């Protein structure tokens, strides 16, 4: 879906809601990276992130007619993916296998890949809600108010999770 052109985006959104297979596939392609990455960073397990992504998009297709537009769809996907990941983490946390840990190292990424992997491992040790807050803050670039609304969490709790998480990360990195 072309987010740069509002008219094209609106037309494609209308087509997707009308059941056009191509428009729905374009929506999935546009948002799958965000949903999959939320699952991967919160669950730290590739298979679990893939399962979560599939489940979220299955539900998304059923809900399509009730969503108001592309922005609402993005918000809904982000919210459902995060809540599902937190629920799974609290109910039955998946085991981060060595393969999954290795798969999180991106050799092409800018900066120090080992530091990035260390940070991801440390974030993976945070409690479920704190982990989700950090991922939403730095992966999705959301501010604490938006995170609070998405997670239905008071602003001060979001800030507290962020502050404590950063303290833990700094303590382990120095």
């Amino acid at each position, binding site marked *: 879906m072309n987010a740069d052109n509002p008219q094209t985006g609106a037309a494609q959104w209308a087509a997707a809601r009308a059941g056009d297979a191509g428009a729905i*596939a374009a929506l999935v392609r546009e948002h799958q990276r965000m949903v999959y990455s939320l699952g991967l960073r919160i669950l730290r397990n590739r298979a679990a992130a893939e399962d979560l992504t599939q489940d979220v*998009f299955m539900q998304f297709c059923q809900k399509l007619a009730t969503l108001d537009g592309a922005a609402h769809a993005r918000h809904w996907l982000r919210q459902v993916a995060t809540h599902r990941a937190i629920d799974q983490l609290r109910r039955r946390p998946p085991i981060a296998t060595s393969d999954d840990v290795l798969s999180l190292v991106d050799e092409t990424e800018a900066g120090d890949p080992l530091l990035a992997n260390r940070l991801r491992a440390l974030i993976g040790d945070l409690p479920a809600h704190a982990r989700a807050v950090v991922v939403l803050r730095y992966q999705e670039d959301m501010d604490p108010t938006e995170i609070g609304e998405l997670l239905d969490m008071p602003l001060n709790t979001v800030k507290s999770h962020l502050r404590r998480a950063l303290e833990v990360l700094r303590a382990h990195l120095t």
Partner: protein
Amino acid sequence: MSGDLDQDLRRALRPVEPTPEFTFRLLARVAKQRRATTVTGRPWLRQVAVAASVLLVFGLSWRGYQHQQRARALQAHAELLKALAITSRSLDQAYQAVSSLDAERVPGG
């Protein structure tokens, strides 16, 4: 650590693409669900299909019944003709017998 933890975290948590194989599976599953939803989402379509099936079965049964009745009627007709022919022959024989008796009785009279 680069000294800017925020920047390091943004780099570490940069969104990643799933594998193309996964994308293919996901799109296939979404398409399959859409097809299923299209059918189940229109209950009238199912009702129309059921009604059409019932009509088709009823129509075929009725046609078969009519065909059977017509065959029976033809058979009955043939049997009736045969019976009439036999009766006609018997009557002819009886008539001839009576006629021959009358002919014998006249000269002696």
